[in-house]
């Protein structure tokens, strides 16, 4: 039996090989660049929480300051998620029968933890410090977006290293007076004092770009 030979017309496919290879490269680049980028994967992440807590109601309509619940944000690396006891400061007086609050009451009574799902999740090898940012003029809104308008907390910024570095290299557009840190709607100085405060914040920001600033 004679050996099989590809017919001559199949030679035309040879021209397709470089095209295919090129296409493959473009495909891979597009895939990695866009599909795997934090913008695609992380932005918009809004997991379901054990309690349907609405920041829009609490921080937005009621105007609670962020620091009432996240009270370690100015002094610690972690902006602590509040214990159930903080919720119960108000909710043992209002909405005491709400079924939505049942898990909070149960946790408080039993002394068990409520297990919230982390939305803004940095890599474990990145050591972010909230106090270093809020004390030096970076508002909550810069990284977390308009939390005061969110029914469900959603990640709005990519929180990627490139995104961090953009601000570390040029922090000024994101700086604000320390007094306005939790003001979600702040745009520009309105009083002379704010202008002075802003100037001071710009002076002391000192963002570092060294690797060891975040990686240890």
């Amino acid at each position: 039996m004679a050996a099989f030979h590809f017919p001559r017309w199949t030679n035309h496919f040879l021209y397709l090989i470089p095209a295919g290879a090129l296409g493959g490269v473009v495909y891979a680049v597009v895939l990695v660049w866009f599909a795997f980028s934090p913008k695609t994967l992380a932005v918009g992440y809004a997991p379901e929480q054990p309690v349907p807590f609405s920041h829009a109601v609490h921080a937005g309509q009621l105007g609670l300051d962020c620091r009432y619940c996240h009270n370690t944000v100015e002094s610690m690396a972690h902006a602590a998620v509040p214990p159930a006891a903080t919720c119960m400061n108000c909710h043992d007086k209002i909405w005491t029968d709400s079924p939505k609050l049942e898990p909070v009451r149960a946790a408080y009574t039993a002394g068990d933890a409520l297990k919230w799902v982390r939305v803004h999740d940095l890599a474990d090898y990145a050591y972010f410090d909230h106090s270093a940012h809020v004390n030096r003029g970076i508002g909550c809104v810069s990284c977390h977006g308009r939390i005061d308008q969110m029914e469900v907390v959603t990640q709005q910024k990519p929180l990627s290293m490139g995104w961090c570095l953009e601000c570390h290299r040029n922090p000024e557009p994101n700086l604000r007076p320390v007094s306005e840190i939790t003001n979600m709607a702040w745009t520009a100085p309105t009083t002379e004092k704010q202008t002075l405060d802003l100037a001071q914040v710009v002076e002391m920001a000192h963002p570092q770009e060294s690797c060891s600033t975040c990686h240890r």
Partner: protein
Amino acid sequence: MSHHPDHDHSSADTLEVAAPSASAARPSVWRSLAEFDGDAEVAAFAKREFPTDDFDRLESPDRRRFMQILGASAALAGASSCRWEREEIVPHAIRPEDAPPGQRTVFSTVMDLAGAARPVRVESVDGRPIKVEPNELTGGGTDLFSQAAILGFYDPDRSREVSRGTTASSWSAALEALRGAAVAGKCAVLASTSSSPTLHRLAAAARAAGVRWTWYSPLDRDHAIAGARMAFGRPVRVQYDLGQADVVLSLDSDFQRDHADAVALASALATRRMPESSKMSRVYAVEARFTSSGLSSDHRLPLRASDVGAFVELVEAKIAGTTPSAAASAVAAKGHTGLFAEAVADDLKAAGAHAAIVVGDGQPAAVHARVHGLLARLGAVGTTTFHTEEPLAEAGAEALKGLVDALNGGQVDSLVILEGNPVYDAPGALGFGAALTKAKTVAHVSLYRDETTGAALAHGGWHLPVAHWLEAWGDARSFDGSVHLAQPLIAPLYGGKSAIEVVAAMLGMGAEEATGAALVRATFDATAGDDTDGRWNRALHDGVVAGTAFRRESLAAGAGAAAAIEAAAAGMELNLHACPKVLDGRFANNGWLQELPDAVTKLTWDNALCLGVKTAAQLKLETGDMAKVTVGGASLDVVAYVMAGHAEDSASLALGYGRTAAGVIAGFKAAEVSSAGFNAYPLSKAGARGTLTGAQLAKGRGKYKLAATQEHHLIDAIGMSGRAERLPFLAREGTLEEYTENPEFAKERVHLPKNMRSLFDTKVYDGDHQWGMTIDLAACNGCNACVIACQSENNIPIVGKEQVSRGREMHWMRVDFYFQGDAQDAETIDAVSQPVNCLQCENAPCEQVCPVAATVHSQEGLNDMVYNRCIGTRYCGNNCPAKVRRFNYFHYTKFMDKPGNKVLQLAQNPDVTVRSRGVMEKCTYCIQRISAARIKARNVGRLVQDGEVVTSCQSACPPNAITFGNIKDETSAVAKKRNEPRAYAMLEELNIRPRTLYMAKVANLNPKLKDAMKQGAFQAGTIPKAHHGGGHSDAGHAGTQDTHGGQPTQDGHGAADHSTQEGAGH
């Protein structure tokens, strides 16, 4: 005397063939005997970082398997890269006050170490203790045992439940049984020696209730106490103030490491060892094995431990102007012993009240007694030496013997063993293991299910897991008597109870008063009085009860001080000593301590029989050969280790090894985990520690694989050929004479080209802080506390013996040990130890070769290492001149993921990345501490102040050898240190511009000895020539310009001069 030229010749002849280079002559400074002998294997270590790995010959998976793995990896990558794991945030339901997540809280507490407290501060994060720090109120520095306690606390091998015989039981049943035993009578308690006032109070109560109480630990100072009894008629504790001592004589003592007061002694000694701070003291060491005393000494005499008594006689005779005994005179004739004794005697006499003599705990009582008399004669009592009461006078092997006799005599029905491990560590001659079975009931209260637990359970007895000191209330007294309080940092992990709680239950105390807190408080109230001024809270906060130190007395020695010293038997002696790493074996299952290279031998995971070079040659023993040692009817097969500088006709063996029921680290027979090292206890006689004469030593069968790091990470700037020349310039040492003449002598040891330019762009360091460090070699005693402190702070894994033998140990900080002198003659040996961590070169060779910029400089001058960027090429490690980079060949931390080992994850510092397989890692001056301080300072708009950042190695260092801070701030401590003339940059000639500077070691030589008994390379004048320094004439030395190393007065140094003047001058 001038031994060196001869041996240089002969060795050059023999080695010429093998390596016809300039360095073929035997080096004057060397890391190991193998290097001294020009062993090819050492050269291999210098040439290639990991010579045991032959990567070219690794078996490769075949092509098809490779494609399968590749395909699978790609598929998995696609599936897993979408978003990382869903993480939960778990806040408290009700957060305790002052406990925000991630906050570091520091508590004062105390570890009791065989009757001497180690007061410490312990940092706790989110409720788990993670780091031990010194308590500045009680003195700086910690020892490595307290540093390693964190790993011991989270050890997965710790006992977790109460047992009786082969079945599990409960605390209530066990305590009821113990109470029953105490009531029934004929009950004995054998407690591990403790300084706890509460336990002593309960012991007295137990005795009153008819319980026979015995204290024992292998670390008991039986001989010292017996010596004091001879001299003063009562047990007395000897305290030293070495800060007052102009002349210190250490007799067979490793007092900076295994003395009960080691930390305080080391820091006090160091205050007088730096030439600029105050009048420098002079230290003499007379010892068999090389110890930290020998390292810190200016003159060292290698002498059999059993001849030390004769040495004392010689000194005494010279001071008193009498004639020594014939036996002592015979010892004087050995080597330079007579000369040395005379020089020491003259110096001690001249120092008078400011003389100090520290005698090792292994020396017989008569030697201690004679030294008491000598100190009284010198008038040193009341200045350098004090006497206080001795609360542990009844502890010791003698007391244990009494208990064994009682057991054998059927006088004990129930035996309660409180901590300790006597079945393993009682002197072999006592036969404790057999005696134990004479009791009807045996209970063992301990941290581990160890050898004693095994014996108790096999006898149908009880085992009760004791609470670790980090999880229990307690108290302890330091050597000076100060009372310290221990407070629990965490609830007992496995429901253990402390020894005081168990004894209180035995005495039938109610549940209320038998809690640790109530017991300690009751002791406090009984001694400190009422609490109207809040002194309880004060004491708890400070960690020390003010004003509780023993009253210092100055006793006159009685006639007993003239006790006759037994003449030493000729022949071989065996010294059994506490291991400076695992002590008496109690820390054997601590992986950090097992893997720690010993200060002198650099052995890890083993002990070995250390021998002098000539003795070993006579017996045809080499390092790694098995030897058989027989003494008094007991014998042991043990590996030999040839130690340069060890006295001849003498062998030393560390206790604490050869455990058979310790755990997965040190050995566990039942689980087929082989023992680390060899058990020396069966050889011991009257006391565990001490010298046994009349030992027989013979070559054994076969070899034993040791894992020593002495030849790892050799600094080889220009390859092995340059090593011999360069070695003397790494750890630089000079004499006080030299320093006085030219304080900058260390800087001038190395010739530096006029203009050193880099091919790379010079980096600009514009940060507000510029970090730098100095390490003072004059203060370092090689205690290794920094190594363990670094390991604890930076989540450094252990890798195991096999990996260590391949040079893969992970320590970021190591203590290099350089011998100087002629290895063949122990009397010429001197040594320098040099702690080396990353030098943070401003012009870092590692950065230049990293293909992915995983190691780059920070604005503040640190050489950052970015683990998540590292792809593991290891080019950086290869290019690092100081050899401080470590590579994770395996996922060394993976064992912590096993369910049984998860508890170890709690020991990890949350502020430091836990590294995975395939990345390089190294020291970054504790960047996490710098970051924390910088954030805190910048948040209020200021700079970090001096002293605000203390690196882990720095805080742990007892002699305060390490200084760290901002060198940009001229007033900082580190900037001042750097400006001192002694400061020099190691490997400066490579233009690496290191941020870590070393301070040269300075020897304060006795003029009577320095020429007559030359020691070390610098004193012997055998420092090789620098690259182009010609031979200076002696006249040149005397000139004003050529004021550098070497001693102009000594003979025969001309050609061998280490002339290294800055080149332009020549």
